[in-house]
């Protein structure tokens, strides 16, 4: 493309082309209701959009825009918008000024010896912006065409309302528990003269376990509770647990006659039985 071409002008009277045929006048029978024209003009997203429309509808090459013609058409729309008292954004006028500037620069004879500078087509920046805008205009339409939730695809949901009450219980760690116990002991010692002693937990655990077994079994032979397979230590722990339980009045030791087997029963079962009598 030679740069100092006078922009390829359409005949000045041509206002439109229909299938390549230039038209110099609006057909007389073509009536555009003013409302429709207004809607039409409002459809443009801005000067770049309007310019693109002018270029595309005439199948012009965006890389070789006939600046004079396009400027003339552009100004036609801007005047129309003014006439219709449409809210004319300042950007439309800025673009008009830019087009006029490009046009005048293209009309200027190229000064000799200034090839390097003049090599830049005055339209280059406009072309770049038009192309970039066109890309995003198309991208907007592509996004519009993507399957969209609530229009094309629908999240699938099934009722599960009855299951919504779960609440995760707090977690506690051992250190917290120990700290709480230590604090309570400290406080207890401040308020009482009782000596709070550390006791063998394994005995306490066996006390709890024995109580549970007795709740289920009601009567148990001492021999069953003292299990030799736990070894000496186990038997001692169990025995101490039973003594502690007796002392705390949680169990009772029964024997039907001297030297008969010893049985253990829980105080609870026993008193329950008494109540029934």
């Amino acid at each position: 493309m030679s740069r100092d071409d006078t922009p390829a002008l359409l005949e000045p009277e041509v206002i439109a082309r229909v299938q390549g045929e230039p038209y110099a006048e609006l057909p007389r029978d073509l009536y555009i209701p003013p409302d429709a024209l207004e809607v039409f003009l409002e459809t443009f997203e801005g000067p770049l959009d309007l310019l693109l429309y002018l270029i595309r509808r005439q199948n012009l090459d965006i890389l070789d825009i006939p600046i004079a013609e396009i400027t003339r058409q552009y100004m036609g729309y801007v005047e129309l918008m003014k006439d219709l008292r449409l809210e004319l954004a300042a950007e439309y006028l800025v673009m008009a000024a830019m087009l006029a500037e490009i046009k005048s620069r293209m009309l200027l004879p190229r000064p000799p010896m200034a090839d390097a500078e003049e090599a830049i087509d005055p339209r280059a920046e406009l072309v770049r912006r038009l192309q970039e805008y066109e890309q995003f205009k198309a991208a907007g339409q592509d996004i519009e065409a993507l399957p969209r939730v609530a229009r094309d695809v629908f999240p699938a949901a099934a009722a599960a309302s009855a299951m919504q009450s779960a609440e995760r219980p707090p977690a506690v760690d051992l250190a917290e528990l120990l700290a709480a116990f230590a604090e309570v002991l400290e406080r207890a010692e401040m308020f009482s003269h009782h000596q709070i002693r550390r006791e063998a937990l394994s005995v306490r655990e066996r006390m709890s376990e024995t109580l549970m077994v007795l709740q289920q079994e009601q009567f148990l032979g001492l021999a069953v509770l003292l299990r030799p397979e736990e070894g000496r230590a186990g038997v001692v722990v169990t025995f101490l647990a039973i003594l502690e339980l007796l002392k705390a009045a949680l169990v009772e030791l029964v024997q039907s006659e001297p030297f008969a087997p010893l049985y253990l029963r829980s105080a609870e079962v026993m008193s329950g039985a008494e109540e029934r009598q």
Partner: protein
Amino acid sequence: MTQPSLEAILEAALLAAGEPLSMDQLRALFPDGEAPARATLEGALAKLETSLGGRGVMLKRVASGYRLQVPEEFAPWVSRLWEEKPTRYSRAVLETLAIIAYRQPITRGEIEEIRGVTLSSGIMRTLQERGWIRVAGHRDAPGRPAVFATTRDFLDHFNLRSLSELPSLMTLGEPGPEHPELDLEVPRQE
């Protein structure tokens, strides 16, 4: 593209709605005059119901129509979706738990004596609902007070094999055990 089956259309609509749809609403999915007869729709719903066997969703007839719902057997997993952020236990709950853990079996009165305050019923309920303590028996004393002990779940939560693995207060500078000879390990039961 082949037309989706009637069952698939009904499944799609019920899942998109996420709530019960009446027979009238189901018929309204189709353009005027093209809605299948009720009997046809009922047939398709029956087919849909059968095809859902063994899946994570089932068809249920409710008062307001048909509903796709998650069967109850999935509650253990599904309910975790809505678990609230764990809260923290109050000081009182922690202290009570600690006393029960270290002094079990113990009555409520004894806990109160150690803590020096009355025990609110909420605290014991919290710990019982959590499955960490249980009534281990009743003391043969006036009023037959319940005695509390910790549970296996309690040990599991704290990753302990037995109570003897609870940290000792000695780490906090407590005087040593009075009966060192009693501090025996309970052998593991088979």
